């Protein structure tokens, strides 16, 4: 609680200083601080913004043998793949949004819960061991994860092969379009939930132990400690990650889904990225890829800015602050 109070004071005191100092004065005051960040910012501009200029091919009829400047302008032709209103595109968009929403609701909270669980363990050793185990799947490539799931749950997987040999009912999980979203969602949880606890655990590690004690002194139990100390301490990070995740809402695990489209068909599994891949990129249509990237970036920007605004309304800091 003290942490929260402190933050509010800081914000208020800064609003005050901002009003009293001119831009020039502030620049003079902050020049050393800015100097520290300058080399990094220059690197960032060089390696992220200079190549971004290449996105001009979104408006060109580009092919590698032509060169970016030489390629003819194509107006908005490359954007047609998006605005054509093709039923396949609409299907892909709907699938993407449904999967994104499901994963936001089901996947996002899992690492938080897991981190809280790990954090509440009394034995430090047990906590470390569990953590080390749970983060392992992150290092498996999707190819392997998909193969393992198929080996376990496939129609010729461990269970079904056994069931077939013993005349027991079969479970059609892989290759069942109705179960596709639950399947990929559980894969994501399996692969990354443990890994994603790391940021939350880092946030929890900074909680002032005095705060726990003061709750305990007030007669609060473990749930109150969780509710009044741990959660408030990691809330800014949760909000931050949630906002950043929103910026990515139109991308759902390209490789993971691409690998598993065959058995369930495109109606159930086509998402935006695979649609664009199947429509443009396989044919070397660089302009289309750039165009879709721009549109996704634009939508992502709007969502991030919007979510940040909403966060401010709820008194959260968000990604960037108002000042």
């Amino acid at each position, binding site marked *: 609680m003290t*942490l929260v109070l*402190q933050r509010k004071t800081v914000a208020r*005191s*800064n609003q005050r200083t*901002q009003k009293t100092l001119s831009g020039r004065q*502030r620049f003079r005051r*902050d020049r*050393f601080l800015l100097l*520290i*960040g*300058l*080399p*990094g910012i220059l*690197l*960032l*501009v060089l*390696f992220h*913004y200079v190549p*971004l*200029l*290449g*996105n001009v*091919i979104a408006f060109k009829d580009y092919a*590698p043998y032509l060169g*970016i400047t030489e390629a003819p302008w194509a107006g908005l032709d490359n954007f047609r793949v998006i605005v054509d209103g093709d039923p396949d595109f609409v299907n892909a968009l709907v699938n993407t949004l449904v999967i994104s929403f499901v994963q936001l609701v089901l996947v996002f909270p899992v690492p938080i819960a897991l981190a809280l*669980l790990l954090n509440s*363990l*009394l034995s430090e050793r047990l*906590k*470390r061991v*569990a*953590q080390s185990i*749970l983060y*392992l*799947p*992150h290092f*498996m490539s999707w190819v*392997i994860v998909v*193969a393992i799931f198929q080996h376990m749950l496939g129609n*010729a997987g461990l269970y079904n092969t056994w069931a077939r040999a013993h005349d027991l009912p079969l479970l059609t999980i892989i290759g069942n379009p109705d179960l596709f979203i639950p399947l990929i969602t559980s894969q994501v949880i399996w692969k990354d939930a443990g890994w994603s606890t*790391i940021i939350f655990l*880092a946030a929890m590690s*900074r*909680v002032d*132990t*005095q705060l*726990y004690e003061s709750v*305990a002194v007030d007669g609060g139990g*473990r749930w109150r*400690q969780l509710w009044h100390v741990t959660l408030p301490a990691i809330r800014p*990070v949760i909000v931050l990650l949630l906002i*950043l995740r929103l910026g990515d809402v139109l991308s759902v695990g390209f490789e993971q889904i691409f690998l598993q489209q065959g058995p369930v068909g495109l109606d159930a599994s086509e998402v935006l990225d695979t649609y664009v891949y199947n429509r443009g990129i396989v044919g070397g249509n*660089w302009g289309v*890829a750039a165009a879709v990237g*721009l549109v996704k*970036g634009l939508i*992502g920007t709007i969502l991030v800015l919007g979510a940040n605004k909403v966060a401010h309304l709820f008194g959260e800091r968000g*990604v*960037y602050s108002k*000042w």
Partner: protein
Amino acid sequence: MVNLISGTAPPSTPVRGLKGVVLIVACALVLVPFLAVLSTSLADQQQITSSGGYVLFPHDPSFAAYEAIFRGGVVTRATIVSVLLTVVGSGLSIVVVVSIAYSLSRPGTWGQRPLLFIVLFTLLFSAGIIPNYLLIKELGLIDSYWALILPGLTSAFQIIIVRAFFLDVPAEIIDAARIDGANELQILTRVMLPLSKAVVAVVGLFSAVGYWNAYFNAILYINSPEKWPLQLVLRTYVVDNTQVGGDLPGEVMPPQQSLQMAILVVSLVPICLVYPFLQKHFAKGVVLGAVKG
């Protein structure tokens, strides 16, 4: 280490039991497939055949797959390359990320919002492989290790996370340091970093994993096979499911399945060794009160 919730009664038995069950189930769900991966890497074709792909307990463990991978020294060399890239890359990355994050973490500083947007936008918009290649080529970095290190130094995600942690350091601590005559750099190294070890460890781990797993930049930017990182070399062993081992009559490669699993193990072990060293920073609660004095 004293547990963080000193002064509280231990949790009730049902709660503890539930936690235990959840944790055991979660760990088992991870460990069993990993055991299968490890065992399969040691199994022979016959057993893989009879089990249908994965093996839980190899009858007759053999290191044939590992011998095939390490034969000729290519993988050993690539491992050294990857370790160096990872160490240098994540070391520099921590410096760059922390310095940017720090310079944007003091409320109300000049130009903060536009600078933050510059950082944020790199998360939302990205360039294709060709413009990136052209830049590396113009910088004369083709076939140089720097082509693999420099572009990954400035992760916007990491900058934003570290900045969020820095923002949580109470202003009075910074003010106190300033009154003691510390300059900006000293505040960073003597106040901010000691209070943010956990997030620095997170950034280090994220970068290390990023550098360790990267292979695609090496495909584009590195021409000499001597300079290939491990993941790229390993990729040539499994590049195509339809390719089975040697193309020569009479040359029998280890079973493809065990080779693939051995590759997974080889690529996993070194990065797993890093974790325990970083992990201790997550565990220790920072006692802000003590610093406040």
